């Protein structure tokens, strides 16, 4: 007669969550933890920029030319003010500029991701469900677009928009145009994934069963397709965010992105480039570093997410 | 008695996963005599394939051999260096996989794959190796072998492909072949041919075979002895005729009872209630005790060892003469097997 084991309470929800496969693989990869923390810090700093930034770098009234070209952490020769990361030619505090700049970069990035996601998922669903020529057409376009660099598509959209929008409204519209341009450049991945899942679900028996009872098939299918694609779509969205931030920075760097009055990190780097040879390295270095760290941390997180959600590797 | 070709002693194979260590094989022991065909049957997950992989040294991480020994003609092979083991694979131990379509590299001609194997294990030059390859193809029943040797795998039918696979496994003349479900992926009409081919070729060469399958019919036709595996352990092992006609282990009884038969009275097929336990959840004592109608207290506590019963071995406490359970006569096999 074996002893009865002492009654064990089922683990609490928190304990189960902590111990779940997902969080375990998160905890056990120190790089991912570091990357996620960094991404979080950067994002939060960007969101709360007005509260954190010591100066508002884009208020012309507060700028003083004599503050210009201060080295990081060293008192300015003329005014004696100390800027953590130095100041640029106009006297703007680099640290504040970076905070506000990240804000713009992330705003454009996130908005374009939402745009791509909605567009891509919708097109993928349509392609998968409707099938036939529509599907072939959509998927062909997606395939072709995937082989072209997003920069080209974004530039094209930008150019067209610029041609269509009257000059007066151009500057205000830049943000919106950027979001649409980058969004249009990146929808294909979502469409591919969602269409694949839709095809799989479409062939399942319950769809026919629903039709037989007289229900419309597609709401039923949606209920099953969406949860299935949520994971992969999330992974794509994360990696896409890093990509969108880089694309926006590239466009701004090329001169067709955010203007100097509302700069993103890319615009800041564009300013900084002119000082590459003359020695004011901080104007270029710090925005670049922040951009790299931002993209890298989001990418690392996305990489981990993809491996964690991949059923084959479990 | 001559030395067995393969001797497996207390072999234990474990898979280390985050959720704990799973024992795919738990102290498995058996021998394969020279020229013998040993059938290995059991449900999916019972450990049949793992046994074969362990013998040939192809257990992939996170799996590993955690204990026991594998002896090839008296020589230990489970602890060899990777390079030494490689020399044995193909040359002394061969293996046939289940799916002939995926077993062959689709980008290389059949002849190239044959010649490659031949040249790895012998000192033949390309021309001689090719002649040997053609001869082999002929032996396995490929028509017009001198033409088809230059064909690609996708140009062959399923049955033909499996013949090529057999040729590949045999081309270095190994002493022992593991055939892991060689016919499962083939049409029924072709299955019998392939099995007959394997049996004939091995008989001609004196090669021993370990035939892993879940198809009892194949075993009954082809094997000399059969081992019934359950949850990583051997439940019963003995001459085919005996085990099939008069199984001793309650699981084997259930298994044989579940085989539909065309002849004889149409009895109801026996269904064993429950299912094989997951490797993470093997019951204490005898692994079969949750489903066994004859289980008694010892079965829940102590794992049964293989006991000799009239020419075969059974891992069941019912047959342990030293400690007969009260009220049952262990020699009355007919009653127990009923």
């Amino acid at each position, binding site marked *: 007669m074996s002893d009865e084991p002492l009654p064990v309470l089922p683990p609490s929800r928190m304990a189960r969550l902590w111990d779940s496969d997902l969080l375990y693989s998160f905890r056990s990869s120190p790089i991912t933890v570091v990357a996620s923390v960094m991404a979080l810090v950067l994002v939060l700093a960007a969101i709360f920029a007005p509260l954190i930034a010591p100066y508002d770098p884009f208020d012309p009234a507060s700028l003083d030319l004599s503050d210009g070209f201060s080295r990081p952490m060293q008192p300015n020769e003329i005014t004696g003010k100390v800027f953590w990361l130095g100041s640029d030619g106009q006297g703007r505090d680099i640290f504040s500029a970076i905070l506000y700049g990240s804000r713009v970069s992330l705003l454009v990035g996130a908005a374009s991701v939402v745009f791509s996601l909605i567009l891509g998922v919708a097109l993928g669903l349509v392609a998968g469900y409707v099938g036939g020529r529509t599907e072939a057409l959509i998927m062909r376009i997606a395939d072709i677009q995937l082989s072209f*660099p997003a*920069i080209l598509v974004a530039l094209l959209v930008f*150019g*067209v928009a610029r041609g269509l929008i009257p000059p007066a409204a151009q500057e205000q519209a830049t943000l919106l145009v950027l979001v649409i341009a980058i969004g249009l450049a990146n929808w294909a991945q979502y469409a591919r994934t969602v269409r694949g899942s839709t095809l799989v679900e479409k062939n399942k028996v319950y769809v026919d069963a629903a039709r037989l009872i007289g229900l419309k098939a597609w709401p039923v299918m949606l209920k099953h397709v969406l949860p299935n694609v949520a994971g992969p779509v999330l992974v794509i969205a994360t990696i896409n965010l890093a990509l969108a931030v880089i694309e926006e920075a590239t466009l701004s760097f090329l*001169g067709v992105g955010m203007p100097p009055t509302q700069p993103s990190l890319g615009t800041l780097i564009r300013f900084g480039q002119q000082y590459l040879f003359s020695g004011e390295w901080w104007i270029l270095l710090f925005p670049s570093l922040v951009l790299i760290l931002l993209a890298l941390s989001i990418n690392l997180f996305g990489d981990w997410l993809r491996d964690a959600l991949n059923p084959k590797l479990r | 008695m001559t030395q067995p070709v393969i001797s497996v002693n207390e072999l234990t194979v474990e898979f280390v996963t985050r959720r704990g260590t799973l024992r795919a094989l738990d102290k498995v022991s058996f021998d394969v005599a020279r020229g013998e065909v040993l059938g290995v049957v059991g449900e999916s997950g019972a450990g049949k394939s793992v046994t074969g992989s362990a013998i040939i040294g192809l257990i992939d991480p996170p799996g590993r051999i955690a204990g026991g020994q594998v002896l090839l003609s008296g020589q230990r092979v489970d602890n060899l260096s990777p390079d030494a083991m490689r020399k044995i694979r193909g040359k002394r131990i061969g293996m046939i996989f289940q799916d002939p379509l995926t077993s062959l590299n689709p980008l290389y001609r059949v002849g190239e794959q044959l010649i490659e194997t031949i040249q790895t294990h012998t000192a033949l030059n390309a021309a001689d190796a090719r002649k040997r390859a053609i001869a082999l193809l002929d032996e396995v029943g490929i028509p017009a072998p001198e033409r088809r040797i230059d064909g690609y795998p*996708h140009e062959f039918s399923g049955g033909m492909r499996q013949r090529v696979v057999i040729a590949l496994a045999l081309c270095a003349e190994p002493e022992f072949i593991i055939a892991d479900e060689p016919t499962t992926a083939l049409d029924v009409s072709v299955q019998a041919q392939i099995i007959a081919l394997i049996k004939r070729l091995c008989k001609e060469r004196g090669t021993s075979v370990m035939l892993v399958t879940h198809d009892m019919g194949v075993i009954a036709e082809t094997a000399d002895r059969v081992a019934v595996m359950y949850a990583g352990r051997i439940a019963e092992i003995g001459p085919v005729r005996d085990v099939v006609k008069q199984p001793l282990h309650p699981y084997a009884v259930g298994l044989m009872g579940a085989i539909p038969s065309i002849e004889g009275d149409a009895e109801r097929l026996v269904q064993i209630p429950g299912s094989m336990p997951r490797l993470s959840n093997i019951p204490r004592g005898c692994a079969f005790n949750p489903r066994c109608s004859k289980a008694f207290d010892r079965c829940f506590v102590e794992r049964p060892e293989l006991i000799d019963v009239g020419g075969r071995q059974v891992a069941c406490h019912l047959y342990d003469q030293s400690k007969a359970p009260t009220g049952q006569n262990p020699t009355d096999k007919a009653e127990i097997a009923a």
Partner: protein
Amino acid sequence: MLAYILRSLMQGLVVMLAVAFIAFSMFRFVGDPVVNMLGQEATLQDRAELTERLGLNDPVPLQFARFVADAARGDFGISYRQGRKVSSLILERLPATVELAVLSAIFAFVVGIAFGVYAAIRRDGWLANLVMSISLIGVSLPTFLIGIGLIYIFAVELRWLPSFGRGDTVKIGWWTTGLLTVSGLKSLVLPVLTLGFLQLTLIMRLVRSEMLEVMRADFIRFARARGIPERRIEFRHALRNTMIPVITIAGLQLGGVIAFAIVTETVFQWPGLGALFVNAVQFVDVPVMSAYLLFVAFVFVLTSLLVDLIYVALDPRLRSGTTALAK
């Protein structure tokens, strides 16, 4: 097999036509071509004349057909901004971009495959992990920053290499090449590295993951069971099977390298097509934009076709016309 190639050709044609349509629409409907050419102060009569001459009053399908015919002949109209024929602008800048693109593609391909194979074979070695980490960082690095970084190290600090331009070039026929002069070659180094880096990381990761996937296949296991040496398995079996998806995907990517060059050319002030395009976008120089688009599409279609041909040559299953059917 012939059917396969024909199908590729047809698809290519469809793509070209679709892109031509987009290019044409841009041309016709973005901004007013007449105003752009004549300026704001042109008289109504001048405008009417030009409109007639350009055939802008004709039905749209006819205009499209004319557009396509012109494009096929190489006539893309006149640049709004520079007043010159677009085709001559393109020809002038083509060699710079082609040399840059081809060299960086070769660089990315060769180094990418080498490192990818290495990282797949030595899965857990420290060098393999280092290589993979660098590739991960590479995906997060915007190309322009790589360019700037390289300029800083090699042009500003070390002063080994120039930071802009093509250096001295030699004219052969209508082609100008930088490959025949020392300064030309020196000028090529940094841009090629910059442009190639991103593709390098992509190819490397692709090769590694494909190869790892292939190494899990049954026929690899069977080869091991036959005692084939591991090296041979890796290089003769796994590599060959890996190459097929790698070449198709990488090939398609490289088809877009011309367009990838946009950023690199801007950073290094490289007088190529990419820089031309960025300029055109800034000034909404539509003829140049649409010509560039057509050119890029053409290169893409050409590369796709080539890749398809290579694919057929490599995979015997395609040559016999039917894909493998399990019988």
